């Protein structure tokens, strides 16, 4: 009986709790429509803004992680340098091997973080692009302060023009004190740079070929104009000694004489400032200088010449880099040899 009473009291208690919960839920449900009437559901722009904020937060986290790893890597490299300066001993060598292994791990972690940062950057760009599309749709009907706010957000999220990316050349010097692992890392960085320079050579080659085609078209166009001038199409007046036909023959003189127009002495130019920025550390200063003046030229032949000049300079740099990398790799193999 006692047990049955306990069960019944428990059941009643459970029932009461359930009923209270339902009432709470009903209350909440009744309240939610009221809340949705007072605080509106997120708009498409707000949802897009939330996605952008999440992507940016994730990116900021990766950036912080990279900065931390970079500090650690710098500290480890400093410790390695310090150990190398010490007098060789078994203890020093063991410590050095440990530190090198640790720094290698950190370098690999940095590479992984760099890849994650690249993906995070891409996520931010995608989120922003989607947000801009959403804003553009909202702007169709937006007015007043709402429009001002949307336009402000759009300016913040609209993708900026791609900044010219400088091609950085890794250190090519062969450090006689370097270990095989360091040399191999250095060689790997040089191989990456060579690949980038190789792509640049191919791009410049394509650019030069395109400008050459355009230059050929322009030459043909100008040649047709030159032949038309030789037609001397102004008619001849067969006149008597009367001087009435004042234009007799003189139109030909006017047309045949060299026109006081431009005599273009402008330097061959580069086609974009971006190229000069990208190659600033790759080619010699005079080539960079010519490249920077290039955007002033609308002559495709001049631009083709500049592209070929830049291509030859990059190709020469690439050859030099390959030679030095081969020397570094050779030294690494030599150190590893038993």
């Amino acid at each position, binding site marked *: 009986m006692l047990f049955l009473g306990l069960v019944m009291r428990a059941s009643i208690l459970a029932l009461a709790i359930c009923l209270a919960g339902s009432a709470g839920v009903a209350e909440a449900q009744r309240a939610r429509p009221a809340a949705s009437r007072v605080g509106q559901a997120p708009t498409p722009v707000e949802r897009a803004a939330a996605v952008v904020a999440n992507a940016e937060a994730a990116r900021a986290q990766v950036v912080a992680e990279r900065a931390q790893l970079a500090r650690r890597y710098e500290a480890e490299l400093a410790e390695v340098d310090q150990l190398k300066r010490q007098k060789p001993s078994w203890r020093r060598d063991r410590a050095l091997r440990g530190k090198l292994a640790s720094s290698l791990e950190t370098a690999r972690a940095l590479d992984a973080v760099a890849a994650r940062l690249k993906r995070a950057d891409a996520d931010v760009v995608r989120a922003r692009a989607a947000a801009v599309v959403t804003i553009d749709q909202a702007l169709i009907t937006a007015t007043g302060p709402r429009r001002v706010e949307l336009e402000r957000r759009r300016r913040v999220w609209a993708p900026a023009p791609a900044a010219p990316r400088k091609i950085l050349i890794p250190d090519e010097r062969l450090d006689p004190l370097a270990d095989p692992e360091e040399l191999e890392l250095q060689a790997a960085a040089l191989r990456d740079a060579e690949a980038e320079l190789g792509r640049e050579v191919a791009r410049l080659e394509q650019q030069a070929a*395109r400008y050459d085609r355009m230059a050929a078209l322009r030459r043909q166009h100008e040649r047709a104009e030159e032949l038309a001038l030789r037609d001397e199409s102004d008619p001849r007046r067969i006149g008597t000694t009367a001087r009435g036909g004042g234009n007799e023959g003189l139109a030909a003189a006017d047309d045949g004489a060299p026109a006081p*127009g431009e005599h273009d*002495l402008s330097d*061959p130019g580069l086609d974009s400032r971006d190229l000069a920025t990208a190659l600033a550390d790759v080619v010699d200063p005079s080539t960079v200088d010519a490249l920077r003046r290039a*955007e*002033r030229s609308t002559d495709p032949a001049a631009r083709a010449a500049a592209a070929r000049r830049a291509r030859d300079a990059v190709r020469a740099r690439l050859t030099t880099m390959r030679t030095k990398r081969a020397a570094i790799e050779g030294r690494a193999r030599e150190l590893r040899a038993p």
Partner: protein
Amino acid sequence: MRVVAALVALVVAAPAAAGAEPWRARVEVGAEVDSNVRRIAVVPGGRRAETAPLVRALAEVRRAGAAGDRTRWAMRVSGGSRAVVAGGVVGEDLLIAAVDVAGERAGPGDDVSALVRATHYDVFPVGGEHGARAFASSGVDLGVRLRGGAGRTATVTGGVRRLDYKPDPDFDWTGQVAAVRVSDELWRAADERWLELTAGYRVERRGYRGRAFTDGCAPAEPRTPACFVPTRQPRTDLQHVGAVELTYTGDAVLSAGYQLVLNDSASFGSSYQRHRLSLSVTRGLGARWFATATVTGQPDRFRDPLLVTDDLTMTFTSIDDENRSGAAVRVARTLGGSWELEARYAFQADASGGDDLRYRRHLVYAGLTWERATVDPAAP
């Protein structure tokens, strides 16, 4: 001619120590048939247009160089000839010689540079006859060029010019000229197609050796040479030339140009207004073939009636306006290396179709060109 030969030698042998850069040489020869070699407008029953076969030849050498970091120079010397090879047409054979020297010195920052230029163009008649096209023209100009970004330039020049009209010294003139020219890249696509605008204005004041004429006839009188009464004053002309051209460069080159010439003369019968509109397109046809098609319209309007005489019938025709329109097609094929073959057909006509005068002309030309440049064919 000895002077021309000396200049050619100078261009070719310019010392490398002066910082000479690429040079370019070109030689061309061609044959042409001209259905109106004297380019006359004819009246019914009067003088007829003459057809003649001709040969043309031209040689040109260009050289450019630098003197120091900021100074560049360029020189061009050319010589040519045109001769009728059959038929009874005389007075159309001529030799041409031209020299063009220019220098440019860049100011600080390379945005401003000073210009200097001297030109001489000479046409010599052959056969002891002063052909109507024989003249010599010379000029010296100083100027300034301003450069902005993205292909934007402005050039302002001023100078003096002289023209000697060999058949009749009364048409010799000397004068001052000022010109301004602006070019800008209006648009550029990511795949490197672009649209350029070039606009220019030139004004020339010409003082002639001959005297100005005044109208000695009453307004209702028919125009004859007797109406042109010489005065004591020398003839002076003020000529204004304005031009604008749009050029698109991409997989084809298209250009549209308009030029307005206003010649305001103190001499009766010498003032005129000319409009010239031209449209041209050049396209590659594959297999190293290129084609260019051009259409031109040129109406002239004369402030005073223009007298056109026919010395065969000794009649005079007075016209207030004139029209020269035409179309031309040129095809060319590069033959590999430095050679190029070209052919051209042009048709010109008086599109107004007036009854008094008729102008028709057909030109058929075929030629071969050899061109060689060192290092960089883009050198001026």
